[in-house]
């Protein structure tokens, strides 16, 4: 619904303005400079901005209506507006990777993207990896099997970076994977264990998760194993 073609709602324009009236007004004023330009022409002294604060972002396959400030980052919206706290904020400066999410399947630092720039695009967070029936994503399963992390603050970011990288290279060497996910830091420092887990995840994605290993993310489900599994799915 809400995309780049939204009519602006600046500070001053009358609330009832319609796009049609606005275009007509601009044309009448002789100020139109091109078909796509009317949206930016404002009477002198007024600033029109990009549209509503209430926008739609597709998060984990669902369109989410959310009230977003112009200066708000995606990590902020996800955590504090949508309650998706699996995306972590480590540095808020594009220097650690904890906030990594996929935008149209490509890994980005959520702390360094304005939410208004991803209107209408598909955002995937750690909460969106498990399937609808609660089965963990193969890379999540591999993290459990390999005990990939210690405190796991960096885990969501590493998982999202890995899942994004594997879409471009499903069968990487260990070095290629290390290079592919080199934009993520772990403060607990066991990169070897992380790589073990992520390589195992790549293998599970190609060959399937071995029978008997499949866990589900639904807490309280006897098949789910333990709370840690549910926590993993939430990125907690």
């Amino acid at each position, binding site marked *: 619904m809400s995309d780049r073609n939204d009519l602006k709602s600046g500070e001053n324009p009358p609330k009832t303005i319609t796009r049609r009236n606005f275009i007509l007004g601009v044309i009448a004023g002789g100020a139109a400079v091109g078909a796509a330009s009317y949206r930016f022409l404002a009477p002198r002294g007024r600033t029109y901005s990009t549209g509503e604060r209430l926008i739609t972002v597709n998060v984990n396959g669902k369109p989410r209506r959310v009230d977003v*400030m112009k*200066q708000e980052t995606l990590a902020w919206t996800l955590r504090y507006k949508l309650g998706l706290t699996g995306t972590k904020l480590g540095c*808020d400066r594009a220097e650690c990777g904890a906030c990594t999410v996929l935008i149209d399947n490509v890994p*980005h630092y959520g702390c360094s993207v304005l939410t208004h720039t991803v209107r209408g695009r598909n955002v995937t967070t750690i909460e969106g990896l498990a399937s609808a029936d609660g089965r963990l994503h193969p890379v999540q399963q591999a993290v459990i099997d390999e005990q990939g992390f210690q405190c796991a603050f960096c885990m969501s970011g590493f998982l999202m970076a890995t899942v994004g990288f594997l879409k471009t290279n499903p069968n990487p060497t260990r070095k290629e994977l290390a290079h592919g996910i080199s934009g993520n830091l772990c403060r607990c420092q066991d990169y070897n264990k992380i790589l073990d887990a992520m390589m195992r995840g790549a293998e599970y994605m190609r060959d399937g998760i071995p029978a008997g290993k499949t866990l589900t993310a639904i807490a309280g489900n006897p098949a789910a194993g333990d709370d840690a599994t549910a926590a993993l799915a939430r990125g907690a």
Partner: protein
Amino acid sequence: MAIIRDVMPAFDLLQPSSAADAQKLLQEHGSDAWIMAGGLDSFDWLKDRIKKPKVLVDLSGIDELKGIRVTGDGVEIGAMTTLTEVAEHPEIRKNYSVLSQAVSVVASPQIRNQGTLGGNVSQDVRCWYYRGGWPCYRAGGNICYADTPVGRNREHAIFGADRCVAVHPSDSVPALIALDAKFVVQTSKGEKTVDAENYYIGPDLDITRINMLQPGDLLTAIRIPSTWAGATFYFEKVRDRNVWDFPLMNVASAIVLSGGAISRIRLAVNAVSPRPMRLKNVEDAVVGKPADASTGEMAGKLAVQGAVPLQFNAYKIPLMRNLVKRAVCGVAGQQAYGALTGDLDTQEVAWNS
């Protein structure tokens, strides 16, 4: 160290969908406006409350500024093309690989997925006094905090200083200079095309600006002529960590050999001066000479003539001598570069040898 302080202060966000609209908005808002491409150089300024633009003009919705076109005479790269796209483009990898090499070692994968070529060449200096909001010369003040006996200047300039001793931090620019790239800039007076090295401004000319852009101007594309297609290239970056870190220095060359001798060469170094440096005097001195170690030695010595080190960056002189030497004579040995194959060991060997 960065401090996380809540969200950024409010600004208005304008999201034009054509370059003409963007330019119109930029001209309308003048110095109140800030251009946002990928935003990776911009957000620190805004988060730290050091630059406070009233209006951000977001270029990410302008499709005509994105993508790489192979033209009759080389390639044209839209300013909004991401560094990952530049690194992976088959024509660039095939014929202009010095550029794929250079952009593959920028920052980190996520930054390359979002950072644009236009933003990378237009980014500001990384001097931490300036970035930290100290009122230095470059910030319009009256002092340089880096160029003092105790200033932290290990990363700073050995050439071209004029009050400001910051260096240009881009990895892509020396490769673009080696390829004789042209930058296409839209100004209020129409389109201008400038040589890569002339896009930049030194502190002697205007200490508060890093490039020729005036408020209202927009970089739309970078054109690489076919003149150097398939030449022998060399690129090397030296940095503290393999990921994220800006170059302590980098070097790029394009060489055409004939019968073992250098018949044509372009050579550039960055992170040594406030402006990316094309080493024209070295180019002239090595033309006609064999691409061997003695020519390399001579080139390296010539390159560092006139260098003025600061308190903590004298290491940059031998570093530059060696990098220039390799860029002139190490070309034959430099084949697959580690970063392209994901092989970090290859990179390390290149640095240590």
